[in-house]
């Protein structure tokens, strides 16, 4: 069947694209990374405290607090969708996790009797393996996120509702449910497994904050999934041309549901981690975080029109936001300026990319 090739095929009229005109060098992520590097140098000269170990740890920890959710929302943005419910999702997952943990650790409660019992001296004693309560509560917290993600995905992919409206509704639904289950009071991780919980969410390994370790592991996994798996290829195809994706036999509905589930799970995990750092899950936790998360993704080069984005961009966007916040504090500028500056940077980042793509 195969014809003898007239190989090597020669390209007489098409020049090879230069290395600096493709890949990361030609992407918004590349420019923002460069801007970040410049900013770091400026900060180094502006404040002697910036590059101290303590401050670096602080920065690493703080940006990890939104970066995992940003990874998740980047998946959705690449498909051309949007998820506004991430902030509420963080809160609700965290709240469910700590409420379940508290409930299971109370010897008197119906569910708690399976896990703990009261010893003769009045102390609670574990009935099972240590850590089981923690595992069950984490699964409960991530479970509600999974459900919310499924509902988002179902409404958007199967019923064909607009992602903006669906997730705006979910933002309100999930936040409302948070107030309902907690009566507006918030909740605290408690019981015999609370120490494990704090170690897993706000501890550190050899001086590296654990949220940062989770972030790196998840970002690497995301890079592999996006660029080296069929699922990732389909995510990009969906954002590039949804009709083409459908015609070529890609399971569009399934891929869409999957990205909203991934996004909700990432937000849920993020919320649980934040609650470990705060030591509680207040009912107004992470309010309007969806804006920070989406802003970070967009600054890092994810295109809201779909088809472009990646884990590096998500992280770079988060780091940039955090360095600016941190820098303003160190420079003793009123922290109220932060939000204004973030807005300016969002527009600048997109503008620079626009100018560049016109020049080529």
């Amino acid at each position, binding site marked *: 069947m195969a014809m003898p*090739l*007239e190989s090597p095929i020669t390209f*007489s009229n*098409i020049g090879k694209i230069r290395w600096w005109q493709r890949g990361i060098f030609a992407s918004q992520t590349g420019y923002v990374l460069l801007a970040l590097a410049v900013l770091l140098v400026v900060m180094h000269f502006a404040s002697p405290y910036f590059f101290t170990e303590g401050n670096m740890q602080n920065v690493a920890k703080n940006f990890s607090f939104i970066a995992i959710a940003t990874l998740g929302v980047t998946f959705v943005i690449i498909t051309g969708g949007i998820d506004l419910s991430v902030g509420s999702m963080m809160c609700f997952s965290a709240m469910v996790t700590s409420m379940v943990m508290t409930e299971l650790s109370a010897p008197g409660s119906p569910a708690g009797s399976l896990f703990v019992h009261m010893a003769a001296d009045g102390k609670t004693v574990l009935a099972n393996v240590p850590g089981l309560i923690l595992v069950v509560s984490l699964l409960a917290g991530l479970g509600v996120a999974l459900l919310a993600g499924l509902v988002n995905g179902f409404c958007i992919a199967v019923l064909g509702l607009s992602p903006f409206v669906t997730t705006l509704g979910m933002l309100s639904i999930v936040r409302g449910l948070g107030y309902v289950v907690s009566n507006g009071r918030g909740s605290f991780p408690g019981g015999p497994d609370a120490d494990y919980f704090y170690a897993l969410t706000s501890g550190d390994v050899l001086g590296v904050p654990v949220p940062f370790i989770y972030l790196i592991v998840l970002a690497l996994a995301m890079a592999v999934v996006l*660029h080296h*798996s069929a699922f990732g*290829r389909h995510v990009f195809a969906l954002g590039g*041309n949804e009709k083409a*994706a459908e015609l070529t036999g890609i399971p569009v509905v399934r891929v869409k549901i999957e990205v909203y589930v991934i996004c909700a799970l990432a937000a849920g995990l993020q919320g649980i981690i934040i609650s470990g750092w705060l030591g509680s899950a207040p009912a107004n936790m992470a309010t309007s975080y969806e804006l920070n998360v989406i802003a970070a993704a967009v600054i890092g080069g994810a295109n809201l029109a779909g088809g472009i984005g990646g884990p590096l961009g998500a992280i770079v966007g988060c780091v940039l936001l955090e360095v600016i916040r941190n820098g303003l504090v160190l420079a003793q500028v009123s922290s109220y300026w932060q939000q204004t500056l973030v807005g300016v940077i969002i527009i600048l980042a997109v503008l620079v990319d626009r100018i560049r793509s016109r020049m080529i």
Partner: protein
Amino acid sequence: MATAQATPVLQLTGIGKEFGAIRALHDVDMQVLPGEVVGLMGDNGAGKSTLVKIIAGNFRPSHGEIRFAGSAVHFNRPIDARGVGIEVVYQDLALADNLTAAANVFLGRELKRRIGPFALLDHKAMAARALELFGELRSETRPDDLVKQMSGGQRQAVAIARTRLSNAKLVMMDEPTAAISVRQVEQVLGLIHRLKEQGVAVMLISHRMPDVFAVCDRVIVMRRGEKRADKPIHQTSPEEVTALITGAKEAA
């Protein structure tokens, strides 16, 4: 070209399709032989696209029988038609601009290799195979270039290379020359010749008379849901075909 004894790749008998009270197709018989290029012409609403969609598995016919390579087939979904060897090149080409040529060729049927429990994309094999296909089509298209940066002709080559992946026996092309420049039309007609050389039957759905007369062996004219003419290209003329399309001449 057309040898009488060859088994037709595609044979339609008495195909009809109704949408409610509207009769979109009525009693259409036709056949396509291996390596034959058949032009399907007709005005808007003549039933061309309904016929194509039935062959491609988008619709089920209300009446009649489809035989593919000698055996009767029933398609419920486009993927069924693709399974037996019918590929469609859509008018808008169905390409994802943000992906490379190779990624587009393999969209939906990526090659994978196993690494432990994971199935990862086999980028190297896909790029190599895509380059081979572009070579067969004699198109100067690099597998690693983004489709966004390509010319209309190259984009056509990518869409056609996709159909070569599965060694399709019948390729249907919907208006492939409608929206591209004159030089690129040449390239696309060249691509059709390449397919023909390799024994692939091609159905060209087009409004452009010169293109049909340049590459087709036979032309079929549809009007008001019926087949009005089915003639070898050298026994007809653009004038006659135009008359058949507009209804100035009823049948031939």
